[in-house]
């Protein structure tokens, strides 16, 4: 609605006493968008690599997720099979086309049914590869696309997420810098999802319960070391 657009913008300008054409104001906005200053970055995540990984693990557990720390990608299929067995889950999972997941030695666990695609809500277990981990809060960062469909993050009961220890950063800002390096300035994939623990709700008498609408369990498969 063009009429509404002009009415609202005119009203904003009137209240601010501006025309939107002032060169200094435009420059200030352009500078901020281009420079995207970081602001206050907490010291918590600013650690040498091994301590950063230790903090990430602590924070993941504090967010009520579970975690396996594996020496290499070769161990991932076995760890997944063990996770499913321990919880009496069917030996089946859904993943995207991420080459890092495709290249896993799935033949080591021949009983695992590995399906590829987005979720339609009928799968109990989803597997994703994170773009990053964030030590500051035990968060994993997932990017939309065929490699790791967004529906896998939310529909399955169990969400398993592979995180490369070399991609665990101290803070969110480092991850934004990496995302800009991959997608360009001012551009993002359709969805960037920060996930910190499994789904929960405290809407009934403020009692915290896990497993609201998203995954009841979030399991992090942290692989390798940071250096």
């Amino acid at each position, binding site marked *: 609605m063009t009429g509404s657009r002009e009415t609202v913008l005119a009203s904003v300008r009137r209240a601010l006493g501006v025309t939107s054409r002032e060169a200094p104001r435009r420059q200030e906005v352009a500078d901020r968008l281009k420079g995207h200053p970081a602001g206050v970055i907490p010291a918590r995540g600013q650690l040498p690599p091994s301590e950063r990984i230790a903090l990430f693990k602590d924070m993941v557990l504090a967010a009520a997720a579970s975690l396996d720390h594996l020496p290499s990608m070769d161990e991932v299929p076995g760890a997944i099979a063990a996770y499913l067995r321990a919880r009496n889950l069917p030996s089946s999972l859904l993943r995207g086309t991420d080459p890092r997941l495709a290249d896993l030695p799935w033949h080591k666990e021949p009983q695992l049914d590995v399906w590829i695609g987005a979720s339609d809500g009928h799968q109990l277990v989803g597997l994703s590869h994170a773009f990053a981990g964030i030590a500051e809060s035990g968060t994993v960062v997932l990017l939309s696309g065929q490699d790791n469909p967004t529906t896998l993050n939310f529909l399955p009961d169990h969400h398993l997420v592979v995180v490369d220890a070399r991609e665990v950063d101290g803070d969110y800002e480092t991850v934004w810098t990496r995302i800009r390096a991959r997608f360009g300035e001012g551009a993002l994939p359709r969805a960037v999802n920060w*996930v910190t623990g499994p789904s929960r709700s405290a809407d009934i008498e403020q009692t915290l319960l896990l*497993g609201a*609408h*998203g995954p009841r369990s979030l399991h992090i498969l942290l692989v390798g070391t940071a250096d």
Partner: protein
Amino acid sequence: MTVAITSPHLKENAAEALKDAQLQEALAKVGPGFIGKRRAAADKMPEFEALRDSARDIKTHTLAHLDLYLEQFEEKVRAAGGHVHFAVDAADARAIITDICKRLGARTVTKGKSMISEEIGLNDHLEAQGILPVETDLGEYLIQIRHETPSHIIAPAIHLNKRQVEADFRRVHTDLPADRDLTEPTALLAEARGELRQKFLMADVGITGANFLIAETGTSVLVTNEGNGDLTQTLPKAHIVLASLEKLVPTLEDATQLLRVLARSATGQDMSVYTSFSTGPRRADDPDGPGEYHVVLLDNGRSAMLQGDLREMLRCIRCGACMNHCPVYHAIGGHAYGWVYPGPMGAVLTPSLIGVEKGANLPNASTFCGRCEEVCPVRIPLPKLMRHWREKEFERHLTPAPQRYGLKVWGFLATRGWLYRPATRLAMKALALLGGTRGRFSSLPLAGGWTRYRDFPAPEGDTFQAQWRARKASNRSTAA
């Protein structure tokens, strides 16, 4: 359901709330829960106060350049294949949303929690158009099936207990076995998950709010703990973001600064479970995501707030900390405030949005204890802004006559110290005399509101000013 404005009846609402035993039981948990959790989260983050300053400064900067950030945001949403719709008022926003729904032949719409949706009365409007809105946040779902309104901006069903929830689920979910066990909250949650899962998968359109809109990338940011917002915005054919103008922030880094104070101030989490950044519709090679992406930018009185003191209120990021720490909210709950936004932030925002004529009572429901300002993550001077509305109420002759005359008499005296001091001294002496040996009054003319519930203490000694002067004099003589 649409909120009927009962703010002018705040006093009656409050009296009802104080008598409601079930509500009082629920409200007793508000303070102990939220206050401790926020404190603990803030204590674990040494930079918390610096982050609050940073959050305030980001919002202040954005509001001063809002025209330019709105234009930039619009351009970036378009570049990502999305649509931006400006809405002057509630009717405008409702029409934009129903047009999109009708064009897509939508029958069911899932909804993430949105206070703006309450503000514009969206659900009733959709229903009237034959479109079924389904609230998916657990708390919003509970109040939707009860035909109630939220009583808290982040915990909409905080006024309910689990017995009420069980009764409602038995009433509404009639397809489930009548003898099922719902005594544990986990069973209630599992049942809601099952019921809503089908709704998520069959919805044609998903409508969510936004915690932030990022100008740099044309992105909407949504924060939830349940994951309901993500299912709402990912699964249907179209995602409609309903947000007000002041949700704009310049960059990803700016949004990140604000996110660091949002969950800590709200629930005491370092970060909410799901923080999702959505930019445009499904891309060419995406296997999932909505086919259309729309942002409805609602003004509804906010642009006018940019002028003058009230601009500071537009920094609000809707964390709920002010009401979680408010002794008045603790006593009367959210519904008593009579419209969408309760607590201290509601007391400032409501008169701005529905007019001081209807909202004038709300800023009076404050002891000015200042706890709201102390905990506000973006440092909004809420007591100062409530005082702003009290002054407006007085200027516009909205205050009841006895109160106006009382204030005028007091004002006349208080601005004339030579008269005020002897007058108060005399009144005090008289009261002390009348109070006699009992030292208190069980009834007093003009103070019936007080003495109906407790005694009024008779004054002892001298007036404060007289005592102050006496002490200063004696200090001086000791020093000498």
